[in-house]
């Protein structure tokens, strides 16, 4: 059995004096897709931000390959890709420039590769148009282009399917499945009824206390 990348033990998170979840334990194994489910306000995004290392108002243990994550933060950050609600797309820059900027600090790639990735998300021909002239879905696709070139073993994706049309959704589903087959791990939060073979589910309770 392969070792889990990320292991959560007894996570508890309180927000505005309300306990979002407690005693939450799970493991993220290599080559798996994990879906975080729950109604609005159940803490899906918060959980993902905790896993990504953005939110630190929680208690419990998070282990990265069996070691405390806080002690291996840099290695963790190098090997984790997080895409949030707001995906880090600058409206004033073109898709290509955005992709350049987003990959520069992690793994710089030559422009033809970036263009190919943008083409792969259906943005061929829009590479040099400022993003503010693109639709919400297109802007989202600029961020998703990172998934076509990312080599981080762990992906944390918040609401990947937002603003994406039906064709795009099934293409992304394929992408996630393919990624898992390659050995990558994916954690997604989504309201979209995502069903992939072998998918792990983390179900968060309702918003009541």
């Amino acid at each position, binding site marked *: 059995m392969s070792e889990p990348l990320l292991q959560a033990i007894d996570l508890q998170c309180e927000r505005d004096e309300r306990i979002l979840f407690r005693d939450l334990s799970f493991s993220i194994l290599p080559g798996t897709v994990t879906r975080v489910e729950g109604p609005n306000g159940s803490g899906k995004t918060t959980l993902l931000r905790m896993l990504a290392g953005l939110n630190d108002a929680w208690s419990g243990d998070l282990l990265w390959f069996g070691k405390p994550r806080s002690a291996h933060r840099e290695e963790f950050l190098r090997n984790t890709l997080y895409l949030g*609600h707001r995906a880090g797309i600058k409206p004033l820059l073109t898709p290509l420039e955005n992709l350049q900027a987003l990959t520069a600090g992690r793994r710089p790639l030559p422009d033809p590769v970036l263009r190919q990735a943008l083409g792969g998300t259906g943005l061929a021909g829009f590479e040099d148009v400022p993003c503010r002239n693109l639709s919400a879905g297109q802007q989202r696709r600029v961020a998703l282009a990172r998934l076509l070139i990312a080599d981080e073993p762990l992906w944390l994706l918040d609401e990947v399917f937002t603003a994406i049309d039906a064709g795009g959704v099934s293409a992304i589903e394929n992408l996630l499945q393919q990624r898992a087959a390659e050995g990558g791990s994916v954690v997604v939060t989504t309201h979209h009824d995502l069903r992939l073979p072998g998918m792990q589910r983390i179900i968060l309770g309702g918003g009541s206390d």
Partner: protein
Amino acid sequence: MNADFRPALVLRHDAVGVLSAMRGVFARDLRVAFRQRQDLLNPLLFFVMVVTLFPLGVSPEVSFLREAGAGILWVAALLSVLLSLDHLFRHDFDDGTLEQLVLQPQPLFLLVLAKTMAHWVLTGLPLVILTPVLGVMVHLDGNSIGVLCLTLLIGTPVLSLIGSIGAALTLGLRSAGVLLSLLIIPLYIPVLIFGTGTVASAAEGAPVGAYLALMGAFLVLALTLAPFASAAALRISLSNG
């Protein structure tokens, strides 16, 4: 299910160097700023306008302006830096770029330093370049203008660095702009005192090397400490989101 048969991905142990990551952050900020040139001009216009208010509001007499000129220019520069600080992290916070910045594997304080340097190049440096013109308008003599430019050259980066702490602390708050000023102005006082004091000494013909060295020490102190505080403050502000 068949997870055991899947190949485990290789972990990356090499990262993009700190310097090239910093360069990337710096270049992106400059590029975004030049796409929105009006935002670059605003602090400069503000600077000129505030300076104009003093002859109109107090006195256009040469003797007054000569004596108060350095102080007026310094206060105006301080205020326009303060005005521009609100934007330092705000746009990045709104579009999610800041989250990606915090999650970069390089030390955050260095990336913040790169952003702050970009902020200085975009606001502080143009102010310094504009200063000789305004210095002539308030009847400063050549020597004073030179010293004033030097003090601003050393002082404005300190303003940006200290200001970045306030900008990071007030990120995402209501009426962040006013709050930012309240937090930061007291911390600006030493720089202001030495900036104007140095020019005053120069006008009296006293040597100013020691004062400039002292301001240099402020700059070094701000360079070494402020990015840590800003990085910590950014983490706190983002954790709340």
